[in-house]
């Protein structure tokens, strides 16, 4: 049973990100994995090894696309070539939903290759929601937007980040990819209670959850994705499951990537938190 209207893929379970250092292991050993998340842009190419790997993965596994460069929050119009290639990949992978970030990263056709925070204003929420709707109509696939981790806030903001996220997804009528690690990182950098964030987003729109590791420095916390998930994030994950129900969950590990087994083992820890939480929840 789907946990909510935007989460028809409850049975997806726990996935991990498909990363180059694991290709050889996955292709040779064919380990049992609930699903793989691919970075769309890595496969929006015309040929060669990336598509060969993708073909083999698609024969064996369920794949969900996650993007890093659609930039719903950019003032620019969409890059048509980008959208065309993305649509071609969507049809190729048959991804059940597609996610990308609630952020911007380019202007005037110049790219920062970063996930930059939005100014939280009503006008920007309307503009961003229009772009999400346009992308969904063109790509013909449900879209979930992910909250990013951030290290700066703008003077011009008129609301909290979770109010902005809620405003955007309600206007766009789309799903949320709730990254609990990003909420934690931002809460440390902007001095808010991460549970206020978790408690106040529209839970019925959460279609996927991300978990990851982060790094604490003297004056700020960085979203590094380079080691295991830390305890405060696991606790938030359990709370999120309580609020949104059983939801497709993915572990991100993008730097200093250990063996496939280690990453998969870390991801599967999510099952314990999820099962424990769901056992407490009356059906």
């Amino acid at each position, binding site marked *: 049973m789907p946990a909510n209207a935007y989460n028809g893929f409850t049975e997806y379970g726990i996935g991990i990100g498909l990363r180059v250092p694991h290709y050889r292991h996955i292709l040779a050993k064919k380990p049992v994995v609930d699903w793989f998340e691919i970075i769309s*842009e890595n496969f929006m190419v015309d040929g060669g090894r990336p598509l060969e790997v993708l073909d083999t993965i698609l024969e064996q596994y369920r794949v969900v696309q996650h993007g890093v460069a659609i930039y719903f929050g950019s003032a620019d119009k969409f890059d048509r070539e980008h959208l065309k290639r993305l649509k071609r990949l969507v049809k190729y992978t048959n991804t059940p939903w597609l996610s990308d970030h609630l952020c911007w990263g*380019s202007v005037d056709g110049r790219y920062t290759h970063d996930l930059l925070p939005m*100014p939280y204003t009503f006008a920007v929420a309307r503009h961003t929601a229009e772009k999400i709707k346009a992308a969904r109509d063109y790509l013909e696939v449900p879209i979930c937007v992910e909250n990013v981790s951030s290290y700066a806030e703008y*003077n*011009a903001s008129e609301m909290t980040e979770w109010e902005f996220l809620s405003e955007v997804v309600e206007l766009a009528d789309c799903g949320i990819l709730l990254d609990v690690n990003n909420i934690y990182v931002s809460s440390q950098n902007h001095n808010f209670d991460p549970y206020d964030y978790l408690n106040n987003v529209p839970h019925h729109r959460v279609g996927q959850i991300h978990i990851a590791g982060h790094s604490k420095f003297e*004056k700020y916390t960085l979203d590094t994705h380079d080691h295991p998930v830390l305890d405060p994030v696991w606790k938030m994950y359990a709370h999120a499951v309580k609020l949104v129900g059983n939801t497709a969950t993915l572990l991100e590990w993008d730097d200093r990537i250990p063996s496939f087994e280690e990453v998969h083992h870390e991801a599967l820890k999510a099952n314990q938190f999820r099962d424990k939480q769901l056992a407490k929840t009356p059906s």
Partner: protein
Amino acid sequence: MKHLKPTNSETNNSPRPPLKINSRAQLRQLQRVMTGALFRPLTSQWGMQKHWIDGAPMKAIASEFIKPNDRLSSFERLEIYNRQYWFRVLDCLYDDYPGLRAVVGERRFLKLVTAYLTKYPSDSYTLRDLGNRLEQFLREEPHWSFPREELALDMVRFEWAQVVAFDGPANPPVTPDDILDTPPSKLQLGLQPYLTLLDLDFAVDDFLIAVKKRESDVLRGEASNAMNGAPKSAVAQKRVRYPKREKVNLAVHRHDNMLYYKRLEQEAFAILTSLSRGTTVEEACVEAVTASKRTNVDWSGQIKAWFDAWSALGWFCRRS
């Protein structure tokens, strides 16, 4: 500190952040200021520059649009993004252009690519394309690779050709049926778009292999306890000898999705180059043989062997 009055006006040279963001135009203005700050090179201490484009204190500019918190000033928060940007793009080019790095040296390479990205920020959604204008930049500003300008150009063309060969498009190869009824005097063949033909003045292929071997030896030395007794710094500092000037014709391609570079004889290179320009097979072969200085060659046998090999590699496709 000089007081700066926030303004909604902007010029191309010195954009200023908007006070409020109630429109797409104001959002664009904010994003221009932010990218303007991110794209500015870091100082020699890897920090954000202290002054804005127009000379105004960067602290004041940052405080116009970024909130401080109890631990970090507006400047410091913006600086996190400025650093992240440069660390990301420099890392990417550092990994993708080891040959150019070896030609100009590590320190000079960082200065070169910083100047390159300052002049030509990324214009693509993918980091794969980050070096797509490096050749153009080196032609426009050769002083960055002085005194090895030509070697640097050869190397950057070679390294970009590998990017294209790795994941560039492939067209369906021609089949015997496609060409069965066409005589050589009328037959035109296309070359796969992932295949790049390079006419080089240096043996950058051998040089790059040596550079990569040296880098992997250094890495192995750092990773292995067995190397503890060896002088690591001597391994790390040993530079690969620069290649001497020599004419090299190279095809950079892929086969079974593996990257290869294949040296070509001058006549073979001439035939392929002519074919890529739309010359017929017969004309391309006649031109190449006529221009050849070699004698005592069984040209019909030689040309047949070349075409057999190129067909087996899947290099020919229909002309688009």
